[in-house]
């Protein structure tokens, strides 16, 4: 067995091979001009190491942020947008509101298609799907002539109410494609994002058309080169919602690849959650610039169907381009190792969202950065040591770190010691991340205290215990293989595809036959997409109904049986809805119609099995190798605490305080916590009381 996972990010390309003997990985620099170069080179290197050839590879799974980068850097195709006459500015008017009430100088992102390339066409479908005006061929042809003259490479079509009836979009798409020829990409809004709300749907179809030529060319090159090397297995692509799909399908909907990289990280978290028997898991990935959180229940990550790419204003929510496709629901927080700590005009200690990144980086890097960051604080406190950071690739200067903390925080706030200032920075960072988790939990109607915390990224283990304390969480998991997490996650992901349809009808007056027809069409479409990947495991189809009280924004999701007739399922839906609603709000409402807002359908293969992580060797831990100096913020004093290695740790618990330093991360076990290894190599921390 040989499976290869390729994760191409903005800076690094990670390649992981999974064989019977376990996981093997290589990390090389991304080659932005021809990203396939690094992928091929890294794969060759790994194969060489394993003494295997391309022909031995059963499958390649691939995720990449290339589509997102193209949107951020505006490197996509010359795109035109055809919409209902009178509505060409919808794309630029956006939500028609400011995303920050108090900032008077905000800027909105420029639309991907400028006004001269946005065209209105006489056609109209009404809210109930009735065609009021059919498009006229001569008008389409005249428009095509203009498009040809403008030499557009891609055409996005988005008509009002196409989510209800795509007939006019289809007619125009066919005509445009035949007039402009196969070299021009043509995308329809109902196919890319078949849901109500014109701005979001138009934004999605335009983004899809914009990146499609580029992504298609790239994927074709990658596939061809792999085949030429003798690879004859399947090539699958990682989607934003943590599912894999065929490369052909990915080329149709490249916008669905946008969050594939982060989705891989979540997929690994979900997999480890299952392995460690964690039913409710809060995944927290703390990187250099930001932290990302995702809720996972019963090994299934929380997903959503709306996210933003290419935020244009200081990474503020609301300043990006909305994309309405399924995606893992990640909340990004501006708090990572490089986040800058400062004292503001109100003498408040602030941490992030400004970041020193990796260049110039924290003061301790001595690469020109002199502002105090979270990393500097950890170094000052003894949570990190000068050597052995990031696998020894970066030497840290404790003096530079302490100096920055002194200048930026201790002096302005008049604190008694540098350590107290550094502890303050870490506490604020912990608080910021814990708050984000708490607020997001409330949004989802979840009580965070009942979850386990699963951390990854360079800073995960450093912050885990304190964040858990703040959230009332009693169990923390620090998985093995955190360094190349996304790529490993690809290997743990199922082949799947999800699609949603808007209904917006009261439950008691739904035309069940018509809806079942629509559902059936959707089910067979997505089943075909999943079948195309030649999956060997069983495929299940899951249907989720989203209900709400008519007029209310609070939508609750519940499963809809795929086999029973819709009519029979409705009373049960009402019951489920009322139960969930009561749990969330403490009351139910009478005499208000319950409305079926939308239905999403997902076909999913069973997740492939894996070779296991390195098991723990002994049941009793080896004695500590070293001790290190460490500042305890509660006692406000410095102590010697023991250092343990992950691999010398056993399945019997050790009691904190202690640290577990590793190549890519350090786990800090605070007083009041125990830590042990599991048989699969994942560390588990638990509250001692």
């Amino acid at each position: 067995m040989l499976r290869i996972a390729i994760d191409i990010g903005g800076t690094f390309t990670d390649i992981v091979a999974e064989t019977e003997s376990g996981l093997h990985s290589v990390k090389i620099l991304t080659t932005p001009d021809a990203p396939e170069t690094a992928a091929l080179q890294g794969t060759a290197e790994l194969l060489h190491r394993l003494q295997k050839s391309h022909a031995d590879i059963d499958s390649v799974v691939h995720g990449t942020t290339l589509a997102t980068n193209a949107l951020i850097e505006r490197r996509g195709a010359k795109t035109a947008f055809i919409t209902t006459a009178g509505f060409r500015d919808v794309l630029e008017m956006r939500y028609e509101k400011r995303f920050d009430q108090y900032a008077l100088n905000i800027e909105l992102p420029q639309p991907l298609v400028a006004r001269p390339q946005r065209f209105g066409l006489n056609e109209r479908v009404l809210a109930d799907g009735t065609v009021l005006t059919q498009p006229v061929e001569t008008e389409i042809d005249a428009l095509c002539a203009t498009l040809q003259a403008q030499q557009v490479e891609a055409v996005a079509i988005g008509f009002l109410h196409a989510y209800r009836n795509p007939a006019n979009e289809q007619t125009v798409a066919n005509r445009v494609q035949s007039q402009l020829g196969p070299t021009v990409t043509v995308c329809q809004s109902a196919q890319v994002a078949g849901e109500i709300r014109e701005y979001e749907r138009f934004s999605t179809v335009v983004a899809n058309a914009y990146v499609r030529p580029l992504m298609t060319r790239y994927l074709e090159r990658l596939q061809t080169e792999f085949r030429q090397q003798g690879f004859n297995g399947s090539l699958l692509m990682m989607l934003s919602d943590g599912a894999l799909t065929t490369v052909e399908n990915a080329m149709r909907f490249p916008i669905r690849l946008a969050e594939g990289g982060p989705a891989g990280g979540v997929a690994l978290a979900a997999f480890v959650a299952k392995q460690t028997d964690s039913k409710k898991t809060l995944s927290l990935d703390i990187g250099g610039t930001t932290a990302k959180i995702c809720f996972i229940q019963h090994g299934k990550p929380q997903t959503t169907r709306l996210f933003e790419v290419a935020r244009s204003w200081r990474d503020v929510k609301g300043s990006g381009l909305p994309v309405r496709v399924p995606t893992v629901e990640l909340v990004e927080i501006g708090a990572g190792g490089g986040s800058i700590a400062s004292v503001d005009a109100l003498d408040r200690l602030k941490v992030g969202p400004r970041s020193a990144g990796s260049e110039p980086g924290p003061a301790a890097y001595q690469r020109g950065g002199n502002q105090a960051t979270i990393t500097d604080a950890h170094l000052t406190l003894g949570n990190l040591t000068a050597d052995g950071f990031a696998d020894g690739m970066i030497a840290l200067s404790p003096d530079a770190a302490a100096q920055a903390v002194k200048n930026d925080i201790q002096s302005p706030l008049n604190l008694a010691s540098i350590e107290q200032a550094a502890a303050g920075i870490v506490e604020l960072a912990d608080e910021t991340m814990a708050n984000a988790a708490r607020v997001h939990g409330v949004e989802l109607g979840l009580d965070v205290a009942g979850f386990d915390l699963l951390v990854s990224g360079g800073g995960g283990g450093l912050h885990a215990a304190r964040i858990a304390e703040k959230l009332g969480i009693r169990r923390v998991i620090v998985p093995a293989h955190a360094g190349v997490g996304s790529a490993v996650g690809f290997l743990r992901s199922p082949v799947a595809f999800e699609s949603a349809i808007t209904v917006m009808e009261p439950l008691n007056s739904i035309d069940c036959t018509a809806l079942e027809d629509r559902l059936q069409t959707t089910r067979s479409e997505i089943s075909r997409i999943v079948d195309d990947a030649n999956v060997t495991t069983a495929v299940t189809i899951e249907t989720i109904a989203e209900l709400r009280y008519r007029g209310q924004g609070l939508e609750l999701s519940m499963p809809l049986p795929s086999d029973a007739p819709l009519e029979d399922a409705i009373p049960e839906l009402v019951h489920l809805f009322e139960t969930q609603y009561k749990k969330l709000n403490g009351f139910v409402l009478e005499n208000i119609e319950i409305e079926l807002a939308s239905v999403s359908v997902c076909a999913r293969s069973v997740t492939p099995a894996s070779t296991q992580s390195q098991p723990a060797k002994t049941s009793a831990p080896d004695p500590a190798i070293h001790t290190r100096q460490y500042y305890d913020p509660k006692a406000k004093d410095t102590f010697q605490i023991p250092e343990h290695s992950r691999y010398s740790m056993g399945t019997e618990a050790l009691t904190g305080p202690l640290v577990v330093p590793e190549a890519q991360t350090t786990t800090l076990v605070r007083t009041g916590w125990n830590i042990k290894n599991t048989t699969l190599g994942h560390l588990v921390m638990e509250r001692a009381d």
Partner: protein
Amino acid sequence: MTLSPASTDNTEPLDVVTQNVLWNRLISVCEEQANALMRAAFGAIVREAGDLSAGVFNANGEMLAQAVTGTPGHVNTMAASVRAMLAIQPAESLSPGDALVTNDPWLGAGHVFDFVVVTPVFIAQNIVAYLASTSHIVDVGGRGWSAEAASVFEEGVTIPVMHLRRGCPSKGYQLRSSQSPGSGLRGSDLQGSELHSSQLHGAQLNEDMLRIVETNSRVPHEARGDILSLLTSNDTGARRLLELMAEYQLTDLIQTSRFIFERSLQGTRTLLQRVPDGIYDSTLALDGYDAPIHLQASMSVKDSHINVDLSGSSKAVNRGINCPLNYTAAYAAFGIRALLTPDVPNNEASLKAVTISAPPGLVVSAERPSPVSARHVIGQALPDLMMGCLEQALPGEVLAESSGALWTLSLSGAGTTEFTSLNVVLGGMGARPATDGLSTTAFPSGVGAVPVEVAELAAPLIYQSKEFVADSGGAGKHRGGLAQRLELRSALDEDMSLSAAAFERLTSGPAGREGGHNGSAGKVEITDGTQITDKGNYRIPAGETLILQSPGGGGFGKPNHRDKSAVMQDLAHGLISGEAATDIYQLNNKPNNKPTEE
């Protein structure tokens, strides 16, 4: 997360980091509350608007923190309403589990649609804090959404301050048999969330009050749901607050209040120092209901305190566009604070640095029983009035005038089919000192439009177009935001009724600054030839189309100083006409590529 024996010992001062954390967390508590409320609100426009707010107050009724979500109109008003409500229902009379409610425009948020719910939070017998939230209820009777009422009595049912829920005083704080009253929670291991649940046990909803609202509302069940959501949201906030206090072993918020207020006051003062002391006067003319309204402000800046006197503004009118002083103060202060202290969080101390006054009985200080339904027509003009004062103090730093009052588009069936539809039509924001104004984006309101597809699904309407209007943004070095033209008609062959209550700036456009031109005035007409000239109700006959053109934002700086490539791009995008390019922007070498027309 437990209250240990040491917990009541608060003599040791909290360190600065802990204080910081507590402050952040209090804001986060409010944010959770506001988000939950927003999703639970009935009516798309209320959700879009975030027409709600949530805050946490100390035992004295002083606001400690407020959600950043929410409209400016609820900021100052809610800060004052907790104290106003406690003046009527004193703290001593409250028990665990109690919650107070009112929609009195002069105690709440300026019109009867806004309900405020205040919930005291107890530890043992002591009130340690209050949670408050406010939100817009779709309908409370009366004339519904219009400016037609001649007095507040016609605008819907008013609920004086009363209990929305009554706790059980005998049970509420007998948490553990071992506790003697007054001893705090010494020795108890009770967690914050348990503490709160126990307070709610046996509490009774005031069904009488709810029935009064339901009986008076056109959408009784939704109204009930919205009011109960406020209650739930406060309970969630109270639970979070008690958890926080348990985590940090606090039994009161006295130190925390002091820290927040001192820092906020200091920060605000420092930021206000850059405004030179002096008195700055400004005026603004509005269309009014059917006769012009004059707004006048005299802003005095002294020692980092700003007071604005609105004497000289028009007297209150007999239609529902009057504004109670609490709502006036909210928007006026918002304008000042957005420009000068945008990063200082809202609380008692930061709001105190700006005071707004007016003699009673003016359009900006209307008294009961003046009608006030569409009070935002006046309220949302005030930030521009404030900017007019500040421009003199800080020349070159102040944005041009924006389209002002949100144009509420309220339509209903006037034929056989009953329906109501509420949307907004946004105009342009004024050009900023360093950049163009935002097109079709409200300022000062934060409300966005309901999507066309959602609006058409909810009511039998056909939107025929929604596009930018060329030359509507005031010309300038930086161009004002563009207006839009919206056309719509009934999808049925039936008459419709339109409330023009909020169509303001139909006679003159928002003013430019520093040599920038005015934005275009708004215009509303029906294809049968009717011109909308006042804020009354109009009939749209079957088959006719309503055409609305919102106002454009004012320009900033002289048009001939505009970057030529920006002028050429505006021309190529059809955002300005060829005449404007040559005559106003003085673009001499006309580009070959004419604006693209479809």
